């Protein structure tokens, strides 16, 4: 994994609350057996007409969204299905971080394992971001802060271990494989009981 320290971008805003993983990547695209190439179908039912033409009013199809890698979304982003195809699709499209007030548990866990940053902020910051699409913000992972255009810094919670892995480009499986002696000892204890 590539280490991640900071990320600066203008924001793109999807204000709806409870954006579920069926919206992020509809189930009909899950018959794939790889993790690549899902970006083209990100938010497919909001982004395209039935004939495949882009929906002009949808924010990701507008010129100001081009090159934005930080998505600001309504409360409880990523709820629903556990499909890891959701963060895969966002990353493949070019989104590197999602800012909301609440991010659903499984989505959050999946995002962290793929280098997509889940940034949960307070209501006031969130409301400001929702009303200022295109704001230039910076996420600094080592200090777990989000810097707004006026220089104000907002802290966000992130699991220490997940942050350590992301900042150092360590993959969690490597860490888990190093726990093999402890896992073996646990299995011996259980078998003896």
């Amino acid at each position, binding site marked *: 994994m590539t280490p991640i320290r900071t990320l600066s971008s203008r924001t793109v805003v999807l204000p709806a609350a409870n954006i579920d993983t*069926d919206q992020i990547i509809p*189930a009909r695209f*899950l018959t794939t057996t*790889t993790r690549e190439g899902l970006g083209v179908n990100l938010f497919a039912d909001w982004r395209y007409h039935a004939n495949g033409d882009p929906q002009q009013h949808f924010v990701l199809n507008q010129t100001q969204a081009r090159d934005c890698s930080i998505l600001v979304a309504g409360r*409880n982003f990523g709820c629903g299905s556990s499909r890891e195809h959701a963060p895969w699709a966002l990353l493949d499209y070019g989104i590197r971080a999602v800012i909301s007030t609440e991010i659903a548990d499984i989505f959050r866990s999946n995002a962290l394992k793929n280098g997509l940053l889940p940034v949960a902020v307070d209501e006031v910051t969130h409301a400001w971001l929702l009303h200022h699409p295109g704001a230039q913000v910076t996420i600094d992972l080592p200090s777990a802060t989000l810097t707004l255009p006026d220089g104000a810094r907002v802290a966000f919670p992130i699991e220490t271990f997940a942050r350590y892995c992301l900042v150092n480009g360590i993959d969690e499986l490597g860490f*888990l494989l190093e726990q093999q002696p402890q896992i073996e000892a646990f299995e011996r204890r259980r078998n003896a009981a």
Partner: protein
Amino acid sequence: MDQTPRTMLEKIWQQHEVVAETADTPAVLYVDLHLIHEVTSPQAFALLGARGLTVRHPELTLATMDHSTPTRTEQIFGGAPITLESAGRQIRQMERNCARFGVELLGLTSEQRGIVHVIGPELGATQPGMTIVCGDSHTSTHGALGALAFGIGTTEVGHVLATQSLLQRKPRSFAIDVDNFLQPGVTAKDLILAIISRIGVSGGTGHVIEYRGAGVRVLDMEERMTVCNMSIEAGARAGMIAPDETTYTWLAGRPRVARGAAWDEAVARWRGLPSDPGAHFDRQVEMNAALVEPMITYGTNPGMVIAINGTIPERKDDAAFDKSLAYMGFEPGATLKDKPVNVVFLGSCTNGRLSDLRAAAAVLRGHKIARGVQMLVVPGSQQVKREAEAEGLHLIFLDAGAEWRESGCSMCLGMNGDLVGKGEYSLSTSNRNFEGRQGVGARTLLASPLTAAASAVRGRVSDARELMRH
């Protein structure tokens, strides 16, 4: 020695801690049972292959196929081609992966195949006190037997395949105490929808819910599974119910449970699982089961739900709410009762078990479904299908004009081509009414099997209690 009273979650957690969590590192949690299916496992097997890893415990891993599998008999058993080519590829990939890594697969034509959350308990693979994971959010279902069971992503599926363990922070605990009993004609589905309405679709985030109280104790195992199944719809990764005599009676003699003295020892061990009196929960909510009405959703998340005789609420200055109602074609203040339905879906890991089929059949018996309505009955497993056929339930469905299919997830998420048309209304016993969940532009109304059957007969959203009175 006095011990601090512990919750069932804490007990199961501590029994599975390979390494305890610290401020800097999550716990290494041991997994007793890893269920896998065709949609969320291929990339995990690919990871194993790429890194030269093996499956640490194939015997603790059980595979089936359910999500993208066809439900038409000729496609399962008759050699007819699978409609979606990509689904066929995924199914064949699953067969190859299981063969290569030595994992037991209840494959397409297996008598034990079914929706992963139906077959786990049915086979007795799911047992009290276990940690169970699966790359599927409705893994919460298995908590009905007193297990700690939760959905994981595909990367984590790879972690469990390779190490039989997961890196996890201990979730917070949430007790939902249900007092009193459900009224006749009100089901476990209505109870969980009422709970989601009460705490909201993110009310359980970061928590494991334990359902307790007299109103839960009286539920049978399949009803408990319906309740735990939809915990994720309230944002909780897991739901659980302490095991009791109902659990042990239901589980005894199932194919994968211990026999004789070993069974007795297991039950004795399980009796220690329930939360201790006075155990601390991080959050607690009380519900009165007697006040729960048959529930039905009107919007595009399961928290947008009302009593069947209620009216759609009004919410000022809520763009998301307006957008949701526009998608559904509904107005604030309207009733859902008597709204026409196009499709009725009876099935899913929420309501695809034998008792669900029995309940719907009791309403349908002697009736025909309304002209123009398509009703799909999809048993949760091949075993459920056989048992239903042994009772003649399939004849009631077929006589009424419904379709009787092979088991699978089917129209719950429409991955296999079982779809609801654009703009059509689907009265569905499944778990999610998200936009497009059952097909592009499909409008889903979630409700119980009773409501589904009554609505199929009238071709309109109906209160089954009125139909049953006649």
